[in-house]
């Protein structure tokens, strides 16, 4: 069932054991470490405390503390296998779908601990939506793709309400003009960039409070990427966004704060501008100057 994710995870673990530079060996051997910079904020929408994640016996994330402020865009960067995607997937409990994954720590959405086993993931995921690395429209029409969330959650009582939600979401995702004449054609027939915007429209149709984006542009060409980045910028006025990205330029362009992950550890969190111009930690500097990655 989870083969895709599992192989990815296996890759993470292998990469984790491979030293990248001399500093990383020292870093890895240190039992405790402290995140430098400013991991916390006053108006936190979500706050994570003492997060540890394990795949079977292998630890993938070590003791991470991080706040995400309301209507803030937080970018998470770092080399492959540093645990940033794993961390992101914890924020709406997507890791539940992986049998061998064990998540420890407190995750507060406002004042609710979402990592509580008694917590119902269904309303949680309605509040914390997610956009994935590869565009994954359902094999249904464009309309049904966007209407799917509102339908299962019972957000529209009448057909006209649903039409309105679909139109609004597609407009917000900047896709309305392109697809309004072919709403009932399959969503899989769109181009890659359009598909990804469709997935974003699908996510915001549920009106989540937080949107998680897992490398949303990695499968797209530069023009489509630019459109998505514009969209993220617009969305940040109404939504809290956490984005994992491989591209440092993208993080610099769209985010307010940037978190740098390294081998499962959160090394540094700071204002984006500061991270890219004058990072506090030498590992961050090494990464953004391209010494490894």
């Amino acid at each position, binding site marked *: *069932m989870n083969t895709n994710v599992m192989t990815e995870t296996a890759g993470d673990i292998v990469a984790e054991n491979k030293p990248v530079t001399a500093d990383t060996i020292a870093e890895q051997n240190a039992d405790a470490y402290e995140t430098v910079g400013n991991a916390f904020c006053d108006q936190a929408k979500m706050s994570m405390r003492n997060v540890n994640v394990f795949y079977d016996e292998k630890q993938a994330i070590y003791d991470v503390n991080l706040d995400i402020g309301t209507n803030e865009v937080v970018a998470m960067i770092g080399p492959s296998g540093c645990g940033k995607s794993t961390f992101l997937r914890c924020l709406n409990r997507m890791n539940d779908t992986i049998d061998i994954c064990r998540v420890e720590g407190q995750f507060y959405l406002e004042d609710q601990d979402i990592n509580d086993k008694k917590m119902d993931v269904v309303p949680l995921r309605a509040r914390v939506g997610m956009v994935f690395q590869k565009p994954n429209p*359902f094999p249904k029409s464009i309309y049904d793709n966007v209407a799917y969330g509102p339908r299962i*959650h019972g957000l529209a009582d009448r057909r006209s309400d649903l039409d309105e939600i679909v139109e609004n979401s597609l407009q917000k995702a900047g896709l309305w003009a392109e697809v309004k004449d072919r709403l009932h054609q399959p969503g899989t027939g769109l181009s890659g960039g359009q598909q990804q915007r469709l997935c974003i429209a699908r996510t915001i149709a549920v009106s989540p409070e937080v949107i998680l984006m897992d490398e949303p542009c990695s499968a797209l060409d530069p023009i489509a990427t630019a459109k998505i980045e514009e969209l993220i910028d617009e969305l940040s006025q109404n939504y809290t966004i956490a984005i994992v990205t491989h591209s440092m330029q993208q993080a610099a362009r769209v985010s307010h704060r940037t978190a740098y992950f390294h081998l499962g550890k959160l090394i540094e969190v700071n204002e984006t501008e500061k991270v890219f111009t004058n990072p506090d930690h030498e590992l961050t500097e090494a990464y953004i100057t391209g010494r490894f990655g």
Partner: protein
Amino acid sequence: MSVSSLFVLIILGVVAAFYFSRTRSLNLARGLGGIKNLHSLPVYYGIQAALWCALPCILLLCVWTIFDDAIIRSMVVQYLPAEQQNLPKAEQALLLSSIENLANGVNLSNAGQFQDIADRINSLRSISNMALTVLLFCAIIATGAWGWFKVKPQYRARNGVERVFMLSLLGCSTLAIFTTVGIVFSVLFESIRFFNIVPVHEFVLGTQWSPQLSIREDQVGSSGAFGAVPLFTGTLLISTIAMIVAVPTGLMTAIYLSEYASSRVRLVVKPLLEILAGIPTVVYGFFAALTIAPMIKSGLHGLGFDLAFLGVSFGPLEVSGESALAAGLVMGVMIIPFVSSLSDDVINAVPQSLRDGAYGLGSTQSETMKNVIFPAALPGIVGAILLAVSRAIGETMIVVMAVGTAARLTFNPLESVTTVTVQMTTLLIGDHEFDSAKTLAAFALGLVLFIITLGLNFFALRIVKKYREQYD
């Protein structure tokens, strides 16, 4: 010499050809200063010569043994007295075989007056055998010697051997085509003969099936009524019952195992269910006839009584001891693992990203399944169900053992019906001559069965393949 000793002779010749050719190539190599100066390894020269020797000789032996009886037989016919020569084909064949028995020294039927013909057969046989022995002996020596002479340093023996190897592989793989052709021919010709006796429309549309009774005695070759509609409805009824059991159960099993069950449960439950697929159908038939049918009979009979007791006017249910329900239920159980493993493959082929997409929006697992994965997997599941249907239609032993032979046009699952496969077996078990409409009817039924299952399989495999390509 007997065929087997001739065969041994060929083998000896082949071994000799191999040995001498190999030795010759080795000698040649020694003269040239090493094996590396030969085109191929010595063993290939040997194999090449052996093949040259074996293939023509075996071909000769086979052709001779296949045709020599037929030729002798046709020669013998002219020695028969005039009145026997004018006998109908079938009776003549019978007579000839009894004469042949006589020639073999077995006098079963009183064919004593043909002793002279029998002797003639024996003498013809010994001449044929002698000729074959001599011919084969010459052929072995000739082909072996020719192979031996062909051994030269620049002779490309390996390429020749590889070519024969490749061609034999090709031959093996075309066997599948020949099998299909063989099936088509064997059912088609007999069916055409059948439709010459019984018109097609009577067979396809007629509602009376009683091949054993002679109802139109004045007509030649007709021995009963051949309206196959009751068989088709019976097959349909039992297959429907089987599918009602197998499809929901198999599908839900596949869904539960692939989406809900932990890997440990999967590891235990899956092989346990696969056991159902490995049990021979004769066992299911035994089980259906001796355990399930009586259970249904007694169980439902009681139920009917109870309902009548409560004032509902059903009365005691009339349940046949060979009810379609028993056979259908057991067949359904047999097909469960078939449906579940095929659906399991199909469901697992749906990419994880679609599941993630649905979960990410806050779907529950069942909503993800029903709204996203099931529609995405639907073509594949339809293909799987079609394959299962074709299996149910072609299933033989369960129905032969648990269902009666009386053709009844009914859709009541508690009555006894009969199916296409049951009729095929009842018509063909035991001794039969190939000319009666009764025997030929079985082939006509076989043709119908073959066309229907072939059509179902063809479409099902295409759907499944298309579906796989969609996600590859």
